[in-house]
């Protein structure tokens, strides 16, 4: 029982990370039809910016440094996403191949830049003492970081759902996922809504980058790319443009991964994610519809 609880709750933590990176990707893909391969770069750059800027504080109050890092990562992710959308993606809206080439190029360049500046060795994240401890739940000692990340992901899910269902911009986004041209034909500046969605996606990716450092205990230049692969799978399983679908898919993918890595063999869990993707594609062939 305690092992099941441990795997389930750590799976929820990992699912939270997958959701944070996948939610932005899903919105960007669903609304803008932009396959943003640079989303992992936002994750990585934001984590490094936060790590670098909070370095002087990490020897002092770890809780303050961690909280400051969290805010910095969110802001850095949003700013990078804004610059990416306005200067590189916007001129290429009608050219999907160009978008893919540019975003892949940005992803590669960002990782190379990070490696050039910080080196390829992982950088340790200093976390408050409470996060290094664990909490006894259903007979299992669950690392507090997992519980924290799952809680933050839930808050982000609630905030995104409020944005989508409770605000005018959210209404524009939901309509834009269905028919972009008609939204513009109602006198709405779709570009502005696109930029906002891109920035929100970047903020979520930045948050995920920082929390991944908290989850694993370190940050490294390649983490964004590996997380992006899982995020793409989550987005496809959850339905393009569907935040709730991404949340459910993220938890399913992470929990299955955790259980199989433990009960079958290490690595089988990662492989099983691809099987899940194939099964989802077979069951729901029209995955381009927002769920």
């Amino acid at each position, binding site marked *: 029982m305690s092992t099941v609880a441990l795997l389930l709750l750590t799976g929820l933590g990992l699912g939270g990370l997958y959701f944070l990176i996948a939610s932005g990707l899903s919105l960007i893909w669903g609304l803008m039809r932009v396959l943003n391969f640079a989303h992992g770069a936002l994750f990585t750059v934001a984590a490094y910016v936060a790590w670098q800027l909070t370095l002087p504080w990490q020897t002092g109050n770890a809780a303050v440094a961690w909280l400051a890092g969290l805010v910095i990562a969110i802001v850095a992710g949003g700013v990078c996403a804004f610059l990416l959308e306005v200067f590189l993606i916007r001129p290429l809206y009608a050219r999907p191949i160009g978008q893919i080439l540019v975003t892949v190029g940005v992803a590669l360049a960002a990782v190379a830049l990070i490696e050039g500046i910080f080196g390829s060795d992982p950088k340790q994240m200093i976390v408050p003492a409470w996060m290094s401890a664990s909490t006894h739940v259903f007979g299992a000692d669950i690392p507090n970081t997992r519980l924290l990340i799952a809680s933050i992901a839930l808050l982000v899910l609630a905030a995104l759902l409020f944005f989508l269902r409770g605000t005018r911009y959210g*209404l524009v986004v939901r309509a834009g996922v*269905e028919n972009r041209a*008609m*939204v513009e*034909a109602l*006198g709405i500046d779709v570009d502005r809504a696109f930029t906002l969605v891109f920035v929100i996606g970047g903020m979520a990716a930045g948050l995920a980058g920082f929390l991944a450092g908290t989850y694993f205990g370190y940050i490294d230049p390649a983490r964004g790319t590996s997380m992006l692969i899982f995020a793409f799978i989550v987005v496809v399983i959850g339905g393009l443009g569907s935040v709730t679908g991404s949340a459910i898919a993220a938890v399913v993918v992470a929990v299955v991964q955790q259980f199989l890595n433990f009960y079958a063999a290490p690595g089988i869990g990662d492989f099983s994610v691809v099987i899940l993707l194939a099964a989802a594609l077979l069951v729901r062939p029209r995955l381009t519809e927002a769920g």
Partner: protein
Amino acid sequence: MLEVRDLRVRIGQSQILHGLSFDVPSGGITGLLGRNGVGKSTTLRGILGLVTRSGEIGFAGAAIGTLRTYEIVRRGIAYVPEDRDVFSSLSVEENLQLAERPGNALRYDLVYELFPEMKARGKQRAGTLSGGQQQMLAISRALLNAGNRLLLVDEPTKGLSPLVVRDVVDALKRASEVVTILLVEQNLSVAHKLARDAIVLDQGRVGYVGTVDALMSDPALARHHLGLRPAGSGR
């Protein structure tokens, strides 16, 4: 109210519009008529900038030919597309809310007077409405698109039952008391009931400009531009 000069649209390898020039006077309903495939819907899309076009378009004295679609709409031109294009995953209310713009008087009273069903079905998903109800929603949305003075309406009776066609005709008649309408309509009896003036397209060019009455009462003209046969000659 609307002045179109040398409007040209090319889609892929096909030149759809070959330099249209026409005026839409203020008030009432002007019919944009012609056989299938002559470019009527493309003309409306060209005016709105929904397709790449060249030429000059003036609206209420200002040049709008280089503006983006949303800017043109904000100048006061609303659009009812041929396929209705309601947002099927949104409720009726949400579809209407999207058309609202702050700072302009809203016409909910007119919309609900014309289509009481829109009020009754406010919470219903637009995708679950019948074709006729979706058309009513599309017209309501355009009417509500606050500040508009010109409605571009594309084939509003296409695929509708005769009873619903009657409602739509009545609604457009009533709406034309407050806005000017440029109407694309394949159903000539509907066009005849509604429109005072007609612009007839022929192979991507303007073939006739005049009153609908004059067009319909001249069998040679009607046959030439619209493919109508004189009564009794049909097979």
